[in-house]
């Protein structure tokens, strides 16, 4: 346990140091990556650890984003409470969706989550008077202050993103070592066996989804407050595919995988969108190659070949 803790703490220390070492462009990128990696971490809990392949997580991300941004825009609420509202929105949505969607499994579950997410996206468009639909809205810099910290300043933004990311990483690390996290893995590995060992798999899957959604919502809320923008595209199908892509690439069912995958894909797309408008082609090719040759992802392959105890 201590060796793996050292590795994870080491990564966090490195990321912290990079705040002062990176040029402005990459510092901004990494802040964005860390914020989105929180989303990947959240997704990984449902998908990587519990085996729930959802194609609709964008609704939880967007619930966090709008749950935080709308009160700030419409009711002038401060950042702290808005952030909390974002988390609450994600958790509540997951509870409702989960109670319905978890009555299905496998392919049906994938489609049901996709459908609910689509309905959520379309509702955001429908309520365009308040949400500004696809166009979205900006959160003015004046509102993005908390406890005297100006979140629009590059350093502050990076450090806050880092702090939130660290929290998410450590939460997931702790979770996988606790009985709850182990029971998620049991469900993924052999659900009927878990049931017949006395585990209430229905309730546990709901817990997994709610925890996953809350962390995803945190990412959405953080993204809105740190980067000052909320838009309907974050609720679209693409934003449901992204965490799947990041987690698969980095390593589903590992703690570091989500971050590795997010970082990798971010820069891959960043580089290729300089070359062509069709940068999602890269995403498509990577997905196909991953499912064919490396279902374990980067961290997963490391775990299988080099270091079996990597959490």
């Amino acid at each position, binding site marked *: 346990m201590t060796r793996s803790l050292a590795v994870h703490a080491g990564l966090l220390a490195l990321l912290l140091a990079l705040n002062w070492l990176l040029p402005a462009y990459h510092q901004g990128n990494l802040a964005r990556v860390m914020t989105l990696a929180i989303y990947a971490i959240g997704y990984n809990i449902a998908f990587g650890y519990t085996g729930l392949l959802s194609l609709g997580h964008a609704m939880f991300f967007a619930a966090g984003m709008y749950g935080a941004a709308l009160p700030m825009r419409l009711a002038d609420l401060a950042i702290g409470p808005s952030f909390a509202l974002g988390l609450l929105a994600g958790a509540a949505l997951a509870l409702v969706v989960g109670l319905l969607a978890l009555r299905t499994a496998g392919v049906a579950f994938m489609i049901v989550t996709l459908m609910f997410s689509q309905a959520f996206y379309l509702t955001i468009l429908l309520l365009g008077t308040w949400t500004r639909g696809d166009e979205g809205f900006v959160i003015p810099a004046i509102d993005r202050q908390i406890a005297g910290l100006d979140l629009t300043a590059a350093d502050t933004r990076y450090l806050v993103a880092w702090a939130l990311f660290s929290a998410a990483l450590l939460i997931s690390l702790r979770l996988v070592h606790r009985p709850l996290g182990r029971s998620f893995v049991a469900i993924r590995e052999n659900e009927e066996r878990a049931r*017949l060992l006395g585990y209430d798999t229905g309730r546990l899957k709901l817990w997994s989804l709610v925890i996953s959604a809350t962390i995803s919502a945190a990412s959405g809320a953080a993204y809105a407050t740190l980067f000052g923008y909320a838009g309907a595209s974050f609720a679209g199908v693409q934003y449901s595919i992204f965490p799947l892509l990041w987690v698969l690439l980095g390593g589903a069912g590992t703690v570091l995988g989500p971050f590795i995958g997010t970082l990798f894909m971010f820069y891959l797309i960043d580089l290729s969108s300089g070359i062509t408008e069709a940068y999602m082609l890269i995403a498509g090719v990577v997905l196909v190659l991953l499912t064919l040759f490396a279902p374990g992802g980067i961290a997963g392959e490391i775990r299988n070949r080099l270091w079996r105890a990597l959490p």
Partner: protein
Amino acid sequence: MTTPILETRGLSRSFHGLRAVHEVDLSLAPGRIRALIGPNGAGKTTLVSMLIGRIAPSSGRIAFDGQDITDLPAHERVRRGMAYTFQITSVFARLAAEENVALAARRRLGTDAPAVDRAVADALARTGLADRRAETARDLSYGHQRLLEIAMGLAQSPRLMILDEPTQGLADSEIEAFEALIRELSATTTILLIEHNMNVVMSLADEITVLNFGEVLAEGPPEAIRADARVQAAYLGTEPADAT
């Protein structure tokens, strides 16, 4: 007269008109070893699947410790003290053997990590798997996987343990060890055993229930069953003892 630990009344199950189990009244006294035998297709696995909650009965009631559990989901029944090992081995193939057993123990012992570790070590030792604890479950031999299932059952400290053909695939020495384990276990746990190996049945069982075409054909102590002409006829042999 002690309360039976498990009791069924009129338990039946049909599949699209085919009667798999019909009007079975079963009563298990606590602390005894009961063997459930019968030709292939007699409905034994269907019967125990209903007991543990894997499938729902078409009609009839089941009571555990005097409480009606017919409508309880499987995981609830396990929490009340039932344990089940599958006929076709069902372990967590990609996890280590010790994690398999730990999962079984953890549900009861929760966050008490030292207690879980002790229960795991104990279960592995009693099934002879202690030096294979770190191996991945699917890398174990078939016989060892079946023992792993039993270890998982032990780790639950159940009141009633239902074993579905536990000795299938075990070598003779392993079967001996298994018999010793069951005898030791029956001091604290009631055992219900589906078995085809008649030597094991005759050696272990306090009572035998014979199922044929989904109905109880005969019930009683081993000697009576061995001598029962109907049982012999059902097995199409004169000596149940040499059927394996």
